[in-house]
């Protein structure tokens, strides 16, 4: 894969700081880290699983214990149960739904296993030791800002702004939409139409096809997810439309190449980097070994870390390209 987490220049990785690693990467106590995530049925999640594994393998003192990924809550609960009973030293969990897995995470914590909550958050703070994830609301804000600025520059009044969401039943989708709407409001704009897709290429394509018909002229389009974006772009190309600007989400390599080409309607994407999985493994290791983060003053790893959602455009894409995940 092109996204070696060690090379992360800006995401949560400690490497970005000026302070030396402080020996944190030196082998310490042997720890077993359990890992559970949804089934990798699209690029972003696949990258999460890959990143976690690659990072874990870098440490000789880490035994990585991934359980079979699944999209069925019931099965994910069972998977975490199996990790608890295997008495792992730390658990990294990306739940299918934070609320639905909260209880089992709580059980893990009560059993003395620190839980590192990745991405989709558990509602109950007692359920996890540390949360690391993207800023969904911030992602929406970033997209809204970019679009707002661009349209303001063009002096468009009453713009047609279209939004293609990811899976509608996920809280993160709702957060993103809220951030997007809030940011647009600061420019006096609002979303004209929105439809949800399933994070897959095909559903992105289907939804976009009809949305393009619904609006003969569009000024801007935000698509929450670069995986489904492949299908959205195909629909745009098929409809031969180019009068608007499009912004993506997550930051896939494919989206970045598209931005770099300069000929695409896709002019920016707001990151939601799967490198967070690498960081989560690192954090899990530190917590399990009782270490802190050497470049912070704190003796212990902080309670929560939110990745910034960055906006990638033609101007800075070269810098990010290496980080992009393959769809």
């Amino acid at each position: 894969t092109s996204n070696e987490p060690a090379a992360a220049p800006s995401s949560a990785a400690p490497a970005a700081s000026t302070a030396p690693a402080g020996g944190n990467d030196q082998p310490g106590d042997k720890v077993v880290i359990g890992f559970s995530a949804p089934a990798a049925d699209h690029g972003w999640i696949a990258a999460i699983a890959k990143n976690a594994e690659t990072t874990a393998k870098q440490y000789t003192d880490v035994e990585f214990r991934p359980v079979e990924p699944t999209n069925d809550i019931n099965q994910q609960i069972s998977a975490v149960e199996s990790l608890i009973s295997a008495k792992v030293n730390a658990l990294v969990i990306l739940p299918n739904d934070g609320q639905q897995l909260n209880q089992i995470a709580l059980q893990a914590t009560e059993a003395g296993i620190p839980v590192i909550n990745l991405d989709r958050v558990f509602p109950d703070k007692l359920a996890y030791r540390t949360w690391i994830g993207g800023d969904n609301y911030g992602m929406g804000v970033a997209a809204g800002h970019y679009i707002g600025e661009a349209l303001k520059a063009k002096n468009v009044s009453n713009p047609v702004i279209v939004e293609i969401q990811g899976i509608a039943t996920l809280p993160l989708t709702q957060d993103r939409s809220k951030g997007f709407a809030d940011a647009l409001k600061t420019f006096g704009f609002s979303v004209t139409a929105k439809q949800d897709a399933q994070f897959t290429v095909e559903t992105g394509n289907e939804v976009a096809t009809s949305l393009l018909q619904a609006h003969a002229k569009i000024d801007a389009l935000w698509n929450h997810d670069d995986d489904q974006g492949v299908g959205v772009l195909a629909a745009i190309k098929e409809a031969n439309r180019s009068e608007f600007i499009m912004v993506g989400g997550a930051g896939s390599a494919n989206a970045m190449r598209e931005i770099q080409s300069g000929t695409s309607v896709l002019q920016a994407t707001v990151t939601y980097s799967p490198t967070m999985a690498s960081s989560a493994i690192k954090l899990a290791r530190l917590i399990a070994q009782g270490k802190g983060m050497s470049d912070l003053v704190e003796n212990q790893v902080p309670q929560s870390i939110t990745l910034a959602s960055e906006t990638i455009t033609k101007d800075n894409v070269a810098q990010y390209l290496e980080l992009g995940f393959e769809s």
Partner: protein
Amino acid sequence: MGEPTTDRPAARTAAPALSSLRGFGEMRHLGLLGALAILVVVGLVTRPANFATASNLVSILSLAATIGVITVGATFVIIGGGIDLSVGAVMALASVWATTVATQSFGPVVMAICAILVGTGAGLVSGLLIAYGRMVPFIATLAMLVAARGLAQRMSDRKTQLIQPENSFIVELSTTRVLGIPMLVYIFALVVVLGWILLNRTTFGRRTYAVGGNPEAARLAGIDVRRHTMLLYALSGLCCGIAAVLIMARTTTGSSTHGDLYELDAIAAVIIGGTLLTGGRGTIVGSILGLLIFTLITNLFILNGLNTSDQLIAKGLIIVVAVLLQRRNLKERAP
């Protein structure tokens, strides 16, 4: 915790099976038991330290509980010559309805009753469409699937609905253990036992075979075939309602996303268990064994950290092999 009671859960769910020696004597059950035995051996060999522990067994049974309850209902419907594609969606709808703010304000008992009523009601509607509207079961329950999911999304505004702390009694079904076993496993066992009794010891159950196996003969014998058919779907809905309570307990939530594709899993378990899709023949014990086989496969994959793709491929192959073996054992009427 729970160590001394290691083999209890197995003993519990196996109880109805053991009392049905006739059922166990059949070749197909022997085949299923053989398959289970092979999976257990695989588990013992690949994960000696984790597989045969009390907590793993409890975990397997907890995982099987929700869909297991649904499978009991599906067994009735399929023996009765029908099919119910809506089970997962109806369970989701029931879970959502039971966890709305309004319902939650009445406390956990009302919530459970609500889930059960919603499930039964949805089943009744399917049953009416099929028995009196003369719709093909496949289409009627497909329509119910689609509509129930839509309704569940609408009611929940597509949000996951948390069970409020004051109603944590529901959640405790999953966390409270008696003799080391969570309550929901007892509920599962109870449903299996009751289902078994209903199917094997009551007129309703025995007539189900007649309605599915030879509806004309059933009619001539004075059975109200339509009413019976309707009741079968209501029963399936009832099971979905109970399953909704269990999934609420396990996930602490109601959600429109619960039970996705349960219909295929449930039907597969029933068929692997030796029930004919054409109706008239089948057993609860077989269905539960079929389900346990699927659950065990999942558990083994989880324990061994293998991936879903391989699991899917293996599942497909296991279905084919099991059915082909069953065909060979059982001289069945042509399709």
